């Protein structure tokens, strides 16, 4: 295996496209280096992106926020502006692993590892986040929900790398939240994860996005669930409709963490709770 630590995204893309062997991008390494150690992967080249200055920054832009692909959970949690605008996204990312893992793990790594149970991904999807995908010929913005195509699979082409995640500007009266269910109090993999982001106008939910994790081969954007609460003040009926839409969208597996029936039901319960938190954060009153 060769190890390279390019200084620019362009250099990283060139390395990625030129290498004929198996190439992996190293951000925090909290998934990749475990796979390396367990002999699940045999890289010919590993490209460390942490020496690329642009990938280490959190920037407030005219259109929202831009978070570099190498920004750790710890750095993310320390950004007051981000925590104020997108508390759900920050909380979801900070739920990944221990403090030791937070010192290394990244949102983009969480996304590209493409686990159905990734905590930060539903929060990003609900937030309407986009991935800045850079290839040899062009750069494109891809909605986060279109990155993961299956467990461990992404839509990135050979030679493409995600440079950053962008989060849109937040209108007034907006809130987001992410909740996951785990059998322990911390340090576990989601049995179900639910993210809700919404904006209110005159006390009524004007727009919303709902995303589910760990209940299908990929994290899901559930439009029916958003439709169930748009135009409401999140009354009891709206919440029940939201829960029903979330449960209906689930296509989970049975495993040691939970059964199909359990996951389907819990998705609805958590959706109601996450929606209540997001509504409260948006200043909504029932």
């Amino acid at each position, binding site marked *: *295996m060769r190890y390279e630590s390019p200084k620019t995204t362009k250099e990283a893309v060139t390395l990625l496209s030129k290498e004929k062997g198996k190439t992996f991008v190293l951000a925090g390494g909290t998934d990749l*280096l475990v796979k*390396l150690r367990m002999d699940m992967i045999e890289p010919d080249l590993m490209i460390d992106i942490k020496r690329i200055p642009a990938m280490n920054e959190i920037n407030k832009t005219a259109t929202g926020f831009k978070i570099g692909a190498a920004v750790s959970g710890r750095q993310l949690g320390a950004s007051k502006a981000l925590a104020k605008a997108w508390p759900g996204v920050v909380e979801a990312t900070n739920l990944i692993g*221990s403090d*030791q*893992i937070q010192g290394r793990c990244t949102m983009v790594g969480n996304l590209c590892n493409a686990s159905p149970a990734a905590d930060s991904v539903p929060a990003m999807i609900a937030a309407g986040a986009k991935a800045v995908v850079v290839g040899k010929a062009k750069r494109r913005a891809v909605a986060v929900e279109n990155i993961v195509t299956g467990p461990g699979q992404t839509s990135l082409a050979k030679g493409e790398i995600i440079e950053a995640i962008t989060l849109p500007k937040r209108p007034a009266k907006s809130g987001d939240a992410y909740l996951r269910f785990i059998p322990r109090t911390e340090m576990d993999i989601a049995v179900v994860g639910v993210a809700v982001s919404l904006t209110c106008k005159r006390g009524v939910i004007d727009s919303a996005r709902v995303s589910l994790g760990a209940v299908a081969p990929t994290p899901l954007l559930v439009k029916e669930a958003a439709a169930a609460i748009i135009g409401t003040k999140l009354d009891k009926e709206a919440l029940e409709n939201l829960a029903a839409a979330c449960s209906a969208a689930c296509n989970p597996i049975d495993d040691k963490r939970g059964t199909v029936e359990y996951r389907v039901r819990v998705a609805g319960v958590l959706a109601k709770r996450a929606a209540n938190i997001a509504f409260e954060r948006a200043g909504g009153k029932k």
Partner: protein
Amino acid sequence: MTGVHVSTSINGDPVEYVCPADESLLDVLRDRVGLTGVKEGCGTGDCGACSITLDGALVCACLVLGAEAEGRKVTTIEGMGDGEKLHPLQRQFIDNAALQCGVCTPGFLIAAKSLLDENPDPTVEEIRYALAGNLCRCTGYDKIVRAVQAAAKDLRRQKK
């Protein structure tokens, strides 16, 4: 396998080594630099026995490549005390009998120091969450939490 030449700082001292590109910083520290205070537990980032700090951030050395340490600042348990003088956390771990076999202890001390550097007066809950990435199969954790509380008190008193 191509060797990678690395110049780094470990516990304030400049250190150079050559390691294979896929070798973990944990293996480098133990087998090349001779700092065996950093322990290998799981090797997958679950147990925290190999906790160190890298440019001030608490990390598991098993989930860092040796090659990544180039130009960074690494601190390990060996850099915690001041010569023969133990750090208040080390002293309180002994006084509170917060260890039995001792394999997890360096990791706990590094993680606890990282917590107290940021939060000098943590609650029991905050201590338990901050140490959730460190596993101990001997003590049942209570004595560790008490030792951290006592050391926090010592450190606050020292600062006054």
